[in-house]
Each structure stands twice: as structure tokens, then as C-alpha cells.
């Protein structure tokens, strides 16, 4: 049992962190506001540099233009994205839509779609249902991967779709399926179990994005408490405030433990049900901690936390978005309730 990154994984983290540094809202608060203020809501130049670094093809087979990396490497990237609140649709496009193509697509589909995704030339989006909303980057994506009741289809973005802005600065759209314009992904037919597994992998990746965001929100908050003065002293002199920060740290560390564990289950387990349950556990804990940390980060900042020009409120917004995307806490509780009597005690080392 080992929860530390190896040297290559650390190098990947440092490279992604270095690339994203200029986009850190703590370094340049206006840059993110400017990028998210205009369509498509993310920086296509940065997307291209992520492609050059191999990040967009990270989880895919080398034969499909990818890097053949696993859930841990994906986690490393997502956490860095979350840390600086990068609006690039990595989880939606690469992990989820790309993940479905990788799992189900024919040789030709994988070569074409994943090759284009990895090189940054083709953006993928994931749509659920015949009328799907909100589809993250549904108006910008070149290719839509549809999940219609467990049947997975693929086709070009329908015409005449317009994007709207989501509260966290992203873009989404409403898409309607045109059966005449899509083809089955791979052999076609019911792929419910594969979809559930890929979604679980995307949930875990989204949890890592949230971990990065929570970490920054807490850092910003503790930094603020040690500099902001009221009543002639810095705020960290008030125990009522520092104790709340301690509770945020506790929530973050517990979440980090369970999300990291879920990543390792996804990396090592052959049992798709175990991976789905681990993802549900990570998603539930992340939802609880994300809400707490988002709320408290604003409250401990006071009025400045409410302003659009200060970053901390955007962290709360993004954490809220991540909580409700790919299944909220209620959904995870329902799934886990159904399996409650399958075990006497949970054994994390035997998942």
C-alpha cells in the first residue's frame, strides 16, 4: 500500500502545473474572467499545448494516438486543472466522451476520434438522452457521443446549436438527437455496463478536479485570515474563524484519502461493480466536502468573497457544478444504500 506518486507521475504533475501557472486566477485574476467571458469559454491555445504535451491522449492506447497511461496519471492532471480553475473541458471531453470511444469504438472510430482528440483537432462532448441538456461544450464540440438508454451512438454536432454560459464560467448546450445523423459506436447494442464503468472513471476524475479546487480555496482562505485585519488584529486571532478552517482541512484530507483510494481501485480492480461503488463513495464525500469548503471559503472571506473579480467565489461555483454533474450526492447515497447489506464492514484494502 502506497499513496505517493512515482517520479514519472511527479514529472507529469510538475509539467502540467508549469503550463497552467499563467492561468492561475491567483496570479492573474482577469485572465480567467476574460477567457470565460467569450466563447467557447476556454483557451483553445492552451488546449493545443495540452495536446502537444500528450495530456489530451493520456488515457488512450498508443495505437490510437494516446499515451497508454492510467487513472493515476489522469488524476494528476485533473487535480492541477482544478487547482487553478482551468475551464478546459478535460473530464467531459477526454475522460468521459473519449473514454467511451476508447471502450466501445471500432478500430477505425478509435483511430479517427481519439487521434483527433489527442492532437487537439477534434473536441468531443457527451450527451445523455435523445434530448440532452446540459451538454458540456455541446455547441463547440465537433463530435457528440450519445448515450441513449445504454445504447451508445456517435455523430457530428447537430446544426444550429447555440451555447449558453453556465454559472461556473463554462459552456453547455441543449442537443436533440437526429437518428439519421449518427452511427453506433462499435458493434452497437446495449452497453449499459460499459457506460457505467466509464462514467465511474469520469466521476473519479471530476473528484480530483474538485480536490484541486478545494485545496486552493482553503489555501486562499487561510492566507486571507493571516493578512486581513479587523479590530486592529489579523483575523487568525479569532478562534471562531481558525476552528472553522481546521474543520475544512479535516474535510479536505478525508476526501483526499477516499478519492485517491477510488483512483487506485479503478487502476487495480477487475471488478466493474467495485469501481462503480468506489467512485460513488468518492463522489459522495467530495459532494459533502465541496459544498462545505465552497460555502465557508466565501464566508470566511466576507464581502470580498462575493465579488466576481475575486477568485474564491468562482471556486465555490465550480465546486457546486462538479457536485451536480455526473451524479449528485443523493444519487450516490441511493446506489450505496442498495448495496448496504452486501458487506459486514468495508475493507478498503480488499475492494
Amino acid at each position, binding site marked *: 500500500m502506497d499513496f505517493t506518486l512515482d517520479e514519472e507521475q511527479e514529472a507529469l504533475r510538475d509539467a502540467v502545473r508549469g503550463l497552467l501557472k499563467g492561468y492561475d486566477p491567483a496570479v492573474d485574476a482577469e485572465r480567467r474572467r476574460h477567457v470565460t467571458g467569450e466563447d467557447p469559454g476556454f483557451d483553445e491555445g492552451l488546449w493545443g499545448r495540452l495536446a502537444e504535451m500528450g495530456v489530451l491522449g493520456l488515457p488512450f492506447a498508443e495505437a490510437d494516438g494516446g499515451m497508454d497511461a492510467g487513472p493515476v496519471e489522469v488524476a494528476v492532471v485533473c487535480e492541477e486543472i482544478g487547482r487553478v480553475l482551468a475551464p478546459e473541458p478535460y473530464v467531459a471531453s477526454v475522460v468521459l466522451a473519449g473514454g467511451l470511444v476508447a471502450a466501445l469504438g471500432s478500430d477505425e472510430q478509435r483511430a479517427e476520434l481519439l487521434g483527433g482528440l489527442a492532437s487537439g483537432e477534434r473536441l468531443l462532448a457527451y450527451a445523455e438522452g435523445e434530448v440532452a441538456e446540459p451538454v458540456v461544450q455541446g455547441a463547440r464540440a465537433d463530435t457528440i457521443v450519445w448515450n441513449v438508454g445504454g445504447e451508445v451512438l456517435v455523430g457530428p454536432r447537430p446544426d444550429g446549436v447555440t451555447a449558453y454560459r453556465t454559472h461556473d464560467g463554462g459552456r453547455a448546450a441543449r442537443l436533440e438527437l437526429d437518428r439519421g445523423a449518427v452511427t453506433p459506436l462499435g458493434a452497437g447494442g446495449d452497453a449499459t455496463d460499459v457506460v457505467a464503468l466509464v462514467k465511474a472513471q469520469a466521476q473519479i476524475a471530476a473528484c480530483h478536479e474538485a480536490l484541486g479546487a478545494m485545496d486552493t480555496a482553503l489555501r486562499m482562505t487561510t492566507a486571507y485570515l493571516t493578512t486581513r485585519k479587523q479590530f486592529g488584529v489579523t483575523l487568525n486571532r479569532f*478562534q471562531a474563524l*481558525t476552528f472553522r478552517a481546521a474543520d475544512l482541512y479535516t474535510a479536505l484530507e478525508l476526501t483526499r484519502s477516499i478519492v485517491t483510494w477510488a483512483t487506485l481501485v479503478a487502476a487495480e480492480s477487475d471488478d466493474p461493480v467495485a469501481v462503480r461503488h468506489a467512485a460513488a463513495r468518492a463522489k459522495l464525500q467530495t459532494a459533502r466536502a465541496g459544498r462545505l469548503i465552497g460555502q465557508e471559503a466565501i464566508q470566511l472571506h466576507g464581502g470580498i468573497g462575493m465579488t466576481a473579480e475575486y477568485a474564491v467565489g468562482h471556486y465555490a461555483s465550480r465546486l457546486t457544478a462538479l457536485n451536480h454533474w455526473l451524479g449528485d450526492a443523493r444519487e450516490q447515497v441511493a446506489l450505496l*444504500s442498495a448495496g448496504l447489506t452486501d458487506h459486514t464492514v468495508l475493507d478498503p484494502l480488499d*475492494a
Partner: protein
Amino acid sequence: MRLRLTEEEAAFREEMRAFFTTEIPQHVRDTVATGHHVGKDDYVETMRVMNAAGLAVPNWPVEWGGRDWTPLQRHIWHEEMQLACVPPPLAFNANMVGPVIANFGSQEQKERFLPPTANLDIWWAQGFSEPNAGSDLASLTTRAVRDGDDWIVNGQKTWTTLGQHADWIFCLARTDPEAERKQQGISFLLFPMDSPGVTLRPIELIDGSFEVNEVFFDDVRVPGDLLVGEVNQGWSYAKFLLGNERVGVAPVGATKRALARLKEIAQESGALDDELTAARFVELENELLALELTALRVVAHSSDGKPHPASSVLKLKGTELQQAVSELAVDLAGPLSLASGSDTVPEWAALSAPTYLNLRKASIYGGSNEIQRQIIAGTILGL
């Protein structure tokens, strides 16, 4: 990164599981499983079985019965013990005074005290807290004054857990009242509970139990060779001891077991069919899993033997969850929880409210949870 245990680690876990589930007397494990207080004889019998197998004091130096285990092995030992409903080695002996004597005591003190401490031939009491020195332990006022080679001790200790069973007490006393800082001028003394001048008064707790005591010292004479380490250096030994206390204080395995038992009860009674009740179990299991994994992260990264700062997180969250499970038991019992004196309602229901009340102590002892928040805010977050 790797989740699975290595083959050696997995074999170690099997070995521990087999030992705890087959070698510890069943009547002791039943007492723990049903949520009853463990009596003195059961503690002694269990610790002697463990000591005979070399499993009572693995955290001690090897020459005094310790095992050269990795932090993960020690964690597995501790978890398997709790899951098997085995009362842990007496903390005052195994986690507190034993390591202090082994690290700071004289050779003579080690030879005299460590073997009977490991075997629970001596039952130790902790003489730390005083009526006016709780979380602010360093403000203690019990005095020890030189008289020739001896020390004369006067003062009062309180919250002395299971002191009614104790043969000896380890005690912090002020030996230099003129010291500049209150942390200076404190010494660490050992003496028998039946020394002339020692009086013990039991304190009844809100659940009707007698776990803690007041201990009064009236001109108690302590030979000079029963002072551990150096005069006036007791605070540093106490801090060493309290760091050890905090590590074992997150009862992950025991809380998991308590929750599993409640789940079984709720399943049998049909209570688990209620979605709200099932959701509480799900949330608690999830938080406990997160806590257990955090404990695993901490043990994996504390190689130098010093407590990881995140051990405060374990104490804080571990006791909160322990209390939350006891709350769930009271809620499942519902009106039957009032029938604590009944022998006709199910035993778990009759015990639920006393247990719930008793466990309020968990967020107070071992460094109150407010002290843990202070440590997290100060040493980890820099606030």
C-alpha cells in the same frame, strides 16, 4: 501508487486475524461485542495472552518486548484487534508509561518496571489532569519537594481513569515553582497507589459508571530513584507520551464493528428498509472509510516514529464518528432507549443511551477536540 497489500503484509494480516479470533478468551470478546464495560480481570487475562505471544507492546524497543514492525504492520495489528472485539493492551501501560520509561528511564527502572508493565502485573494510573489543569495541563500545581534523597508530594489529580484498579501511578508534579515558564520545573514521578498519604475517591459518571477518580496526595514520600529522566524535564516526557496517546485514540476498527452490529440489528428489525435510516448508515460507513484511509496515509508517511500532524485529524474525526454511531444506536432504539434499566427489552437497546452518554467523553479526553482544532489550525494551517 499501490492499493494492495504485499504478500508479506497480507500474510501478516491473516496471522493477526487468526490470533485475535482464536487465542483471546471468547467471554472477553463477547463482553466487548455486546458493548459492556470490560472488567479488570478481563483486561489482565487478555494482555497476558497477548504478551505471551509477543503482541502486547509492539511499539516498545525490541529489547523490552517490542517488535520491529513497520507503521503499517502496527496499524494492521491495531485494526484486527478491534475488529475481533479484543480489548486493547491497557493504554496507561502499553502506550503511556512504558514508552516513557523505555526512552527516558534509568537502566534500573527499565529492568524493574518494563517486564511487569508489559504483562499487566502492574496496573498503572495516569496522574496528569488536575481540577485546574485540564487542557491547560502545564498549569498543574501538585508539588514535589526534596527531602534528602526523597520527594514529598502534595496535591490532587483528577479524571484518573480506572485508578480504582491501579497498583502504581505515574504522576506529573511541580519540582521548581520558580521556573520562568510553567512548562519548566515539572518532573515525572512513579509511586505505588498504596503509599501512605494517597487517597482515591471514585467519580460517578452520567451513565452511572465508575471509570474515573480523584486522587489526593498528602505528604506522599517518593524515593528519589522513582523520578524518571531528569528533574524538571517532565514536560518533554509528557509531550512525548501525549503524542503517543493521540495516535491510538482514533478507534476506527471498533467504530466499524459497532456500526456493523447496528446494521445487522437494523436489518433484522426491518429498520434498514427505511430510506432515511439506510442513508445514515451509508453516510457513516463512507466517513469511516475516509477516516480509515486517512489513518493508512498517516501510518504510511510517519516513518521516523513521530506522530504525523494529521494525527490530530484522526483524533478529531475518529471521536466524532464514534459518537455519531452511538447516536444512531439511540435513534434506532427509539423509545426503548429509555428502558436502560430493563432486562426485558433487547440488551443493545437498553445499553444504547448509557453508551451514548458515556461516549461524550471521547471528544474531551486525549486532548479535547478543541485542542486538536487548535493544533490543526496552528501547526498545519499556520493560523
